């Protein structure tokens, strides 16, 4: 009768109903296409809370919270890679897990395509920053647990920031701290750090990761419909340079808009790491 009944897990009751939230209906009805963004300006990101070193048994860890996106990250290693052949460089292994209660619908605790694409994006964002040439034959394991999910774009961006803070906390050598920011186009506007609701209304979205300290980008991921001019103001790949930033600030779009926020996010990560370094 019940083919997918798993007696090793705690199973829910036979009959259940989804809870009814009254604020959910409000939010859906209030915004209409063509209106400007509600709650914050188009170029604003959600407030970020970041704390390093919360998981005691991990070598390094970080917890990040941006309103309804909550991610815990733990870094283990460098440990000896046993299964692979001899390798001069180390390996960076990223795994993302969604908590069963992280989304509006319950997520079964199995690995699926979404976990992996998230892990690949975060790994790509971190890979150019970590000095793997110093860790022959070793593996660094990064485990991210999404406790609450509010938009996949936000998860990738926040996850990359948390993972980079956790790597720094673990004492793993990096060229620089990796920051990431997401953006979506809604109508004519570009909204930074969209929520799940906002991303649903967007025609395209963009995630940019980079090292603001070095003025380099590590990963750009684009999905949906997005005109090239909006994605790139190509001249400003090194836009963390203050002069260029100010020159473009009036028509900040896509990548530039994200990179401006890097400096803000970098300040938060730096503060979290310094606080943690002083306490230990």
């Amino acid at each position, binding site marked *: 009768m019940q083919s997918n009944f798993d007696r090793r897990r705690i199973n829910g009751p036979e009959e259940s109903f989804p809870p009814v939230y009254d604020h959910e209906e409000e939010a859906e009805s209030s915004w209409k296409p063509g209106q400007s963004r509600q709650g914050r300006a188009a170029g604003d990101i959600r407030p970020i809370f970041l704390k390093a070193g919360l998981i005691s048994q991990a070598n390094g860890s970080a917890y990040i919270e941006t309103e309804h996106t909550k991610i815990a990250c733990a870094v283990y290693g460098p440990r*000896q890679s046993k299964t692979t052949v*001899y390798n001069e460089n180390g390996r960076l292994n990223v795994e993302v897990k969604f908590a069963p209660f992280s989304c509006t619908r319950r997520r079964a605790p199995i690995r699926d395509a979404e976990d992996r694409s998230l892990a690949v994006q975060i790994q790509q964002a971190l890979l150019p920053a970590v000095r793997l040439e110093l860790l022959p*034959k070793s593996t660094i394991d990064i485990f991210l647990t999404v406790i609450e999910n509010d938009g996949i774009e936000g998860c990738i961006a926040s996850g990359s920031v948390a993972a980079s803070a956790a790597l720094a906390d673990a004492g793993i050598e990096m*060229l620089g701290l990796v920051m990431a920011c997401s953006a979506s186009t809604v109508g004519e506007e570009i909204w930074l750090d969209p929520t799940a609701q906002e991303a649903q209304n967007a025609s395209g979205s963009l995630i940019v990761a980079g090292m603001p300290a070095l003025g380099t980008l590590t990963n750009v991921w684009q999905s949906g419909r997005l005109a090239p001019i909006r994605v790139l103001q190509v001249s400003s790949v090194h836009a963390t340079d203050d002069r260029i930033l100010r020159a473009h600030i009036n028509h900040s779009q896509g990548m530039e808009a994200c990179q401006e926020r890097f400096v803000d996010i970098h300040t938060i990560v730096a503060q979290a790491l310094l606080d943690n370094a002083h306490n230990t």
Partner: protein
Amino acid sequence: MSSDLVLPGQPIPLPRGPVPQLGSGIYSRDGNIRASLVGIPGYEGSTLSISRTRPHAPSSNSIVLGSITRLSPQQATLSISVVDGVPLPPGEEFTGVIRVQDVRATEKDRVKIADCFRGGDVVKGLVISLGDARSYYVTTARNDLGVIFATSESGATMEPVSWQEMRCPRTGRIEKRKCAKPEGL
């Protein structure tokens, strides 16, 4: 004090004069000297480095401590648990191998692994190479390297009597080991 702490990617201001040698936690890119770890940069002689006391993987010339897990006529396998005086987290040991030609410096062809190590012995060794995919190559061919802790057949902790022998204090029997020279002797 917070001004002394640097973050990964942060440029390190250098005094005028010759550029120091770069140690761990520091790298140079496009002519800038930058930090790659969270910490306070400091000088050891002419080397600028950010010291870290966190556990790290063995490299060539690391002094390691480990216990013998397996013996064969060709090699002894040890599970490395301390690297350069920093203990590794439990469950994250590295495996090392002492090959028969790396046990001692002289009369290498007459070495018998069984007369030098026993299972459970704690050995101090020097990493000579990163070895193959599975293990690091470790040598004990130095006076201060070898078995530093061993229990006898009757279970008592033995004491070294020569560089090749250890005595059990309970039974007085002599067992063969490749002993490390005790520190401060």
